[in-house]
């Protein structure tokens, strides 16, 4: 087993899947010689050539639209959107076309495609290099939305996404790319899309989260344990479809739920998670369902003090978890 950081795990999985299936190809801005602005495709151009590792023009709608066409023909495009903030020019192709193709043709025409995009803040990216955009896609049946939180999960979930028969949005928190390393199995493996993961078990409070916030919550949980409070930390991993069973089980286990995500609170992912709990576990709850999320502002500012004010961190998570435990 090699020790890989997050972006290395992504790269090795792309390499593995491209070796495994000649129909898999990568397309996006600067994915070729440069290997992507975060190095996620570094070396693939040399190994697979420019037909399968294609620098695209600066046109997101085309990256996705051409990807859709090539998937209709039978290839398996892995489209890279350079920053999640720049996915919006492709929104019509994703929502109107990729998400509805199978449905409208009753399965005659399908779009097995992956759209990878780095998202998230805390890296001095300002308003347009820090956004979390997952909540723009989770209300669209026909799509799948995946957000891994560790190198090991990234490999298993990206392999699953590439082999999936439907369009998968695969969001990678750029703040994790080099922040965490772990042992990742060299052999192929799949982590099923749609299954959440208990990253830490506990009996006192339940924290439901995803992305980089998973690590903040795990750090906070360690602290909290010193105070005698054991937190269950559930990593959603897939936001569409949500793992309802795992959410309900985790909520019922402790009766106290805190939902944590970096994206803005109102009409965010946490809203649906909370609504599922209010629907299914009302009488198991000992406290109101809490949410700790980004503020409801247009996006994350650039200057360090304002960026810190926006971003979550272990301290903020610990405070919210402690307050819930004491409720």
């Amino acid at each position, binding site marked *: 087993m090699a020790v890989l950081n997050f972006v290395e795990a992504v790269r090795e999985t792309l390499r593995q899947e491209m070796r495994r299936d000649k129909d898999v190809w990568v397309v996006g801005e600067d994915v070729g010689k440069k290997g992507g602005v975060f190095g996620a495709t570094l070396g693939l151009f040399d190994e697979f050539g420019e037909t399968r590792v294609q620098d695209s023009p600066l046109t997101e709608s085309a990256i996705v639209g051409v990807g859709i066409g*090539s998937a209709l023909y039978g*290839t398996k495009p892995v489209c890279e959107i350079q920053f999640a903030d720049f996915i919006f020019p492709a929104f019509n192709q994703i929502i109107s076309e990729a998400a509805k193709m199978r449905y409208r043709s009753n399965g*005659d025409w399908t779009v097995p495609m992956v759209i990878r995009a780095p998202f998230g803040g805390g890296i001095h990216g300002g308003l347009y290099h820090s956004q979390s955009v997952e909540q723009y896609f989770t209300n669209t049946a026909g799509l799948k939305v995946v957000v891994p939180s560790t190198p090991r999960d990234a490999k298993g979930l990206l392999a699953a996404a590439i082999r999936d028969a439907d369009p998968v949005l695969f969001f990678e928190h750029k703040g994790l790319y080099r922040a965490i390393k772990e042992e990742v199995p060299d052999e192929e493996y799949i982590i099923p899309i749609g299954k959440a993961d208990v990253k830490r078990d506990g009996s006192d409070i339940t924290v439901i989260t995803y992305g980089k916030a998973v690590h903040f919550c795990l750090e906070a949980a360690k602290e909290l344990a010193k105070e005698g409070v054991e937190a269950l930390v559930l990593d959603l991993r897939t936001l569409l479809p949500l793992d309802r069973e795992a959410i309900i089980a985790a909520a019922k286990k402790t009766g106290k739920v805190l939902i944590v995500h970096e994206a803005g609170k109102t009409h965010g992912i946490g809203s649906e998670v909370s609504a599922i709990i209010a629907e299914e576990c009302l009488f198991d709850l000992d406290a109101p369902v809490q949410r700790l999320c980004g503020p409801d502002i247009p996006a994350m500012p650039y200057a360090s003090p304002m960026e810190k004010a926006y971003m979550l961190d272990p301290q903020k998570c610990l405070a919210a978890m402690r307050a819930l435990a004491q409720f």
Partner: protein
Amino acid sequence: MTTETGMRHHALGLSNEQLIEMYEYMLQTRRIDERLWLLQRGGKIAFVISPQGAEAAQVGCAYAFRAGQDWFTPYYRDLGINLVAGVTPREIFLAAFARGACPASGGKQMPSHWGNRPKNVISGSSPVTTQLLHAVGIAQGARMRGDDVVVYTCCGEGSSNQGDFHEALNWAGVHKLPVLFFIQNNEYAISVSLEKQLAGGSVAKRGPGYGMPGIEVDGTDFLAVYAAAKEAHDRARAGEGPTLIEAKCVRLTSHSSDDDQRRYREAAELEAMKAKDPLVKARAYLYEAGVLTEELESALEAKVAAAINDGCDWAEAQPYADPAFAMTHVYAEEGI
């Protein structure tokens, strides 16, 4: 109408039989659409959007393609394209009646939202111009697989101003992909006329900016369209890349059954348009060419009418999909 080398269609390498076949497709396109309007007026179907005025453009263009081998991402008016590609009248009427057996969508979509997997006709949506990018992607896929495929894609002159048009032509031009971008310019986008719609007044003129030929052709002259499309098809197969063709058509009907063009077009303009009816012009050519005779014509009309009556009656008798069908084919997991 004749040339040094004889008849125009001979000069184009078209036999008399092929000429008659092309005419039959145009006739079928017109007559099917006329039937659809009757059904709509009679309250039997909810919606019609019409190819009338574009039959020559559609059939002339599609005839340069290889049904079953080439791929198509047509737009809503492309009834003629679908017929030449091999879609049957029965299938057309199944869509019109939104029946469960409709190969395009099983009744999930409105009529004229084409789709036919066996015939390589991609499923289409309503938002205009998205299909141009799909065509480019299909060509990219065929190129990767080393397949001999040319892709037909189309939209109206209004839709050609969407950003996706620009991104599609640029991408196809960069990679010299085998795509024909066919623009049917009928001078209106619903009620919006050309001068309020299209800066410069010509779609074809935009071709060179993408490093490809931009050809303007009389879309009411099926042989002229065939000639242009054939050349583009040959270029594509020869690896010389995409072509943009602007076919100048007329819109003989209102935009759709929900529209009344008398509200925004002058009576005189509507009257003058009739002189450009592509079916009338084609018929005249076939008579002058001595290929069409009165018996043959009535035989063709009878043959077309029979196919339409069969398709219409049969399709109407087919059931709707079960309501529960609405919940299916969201994801593959359903295994349906």
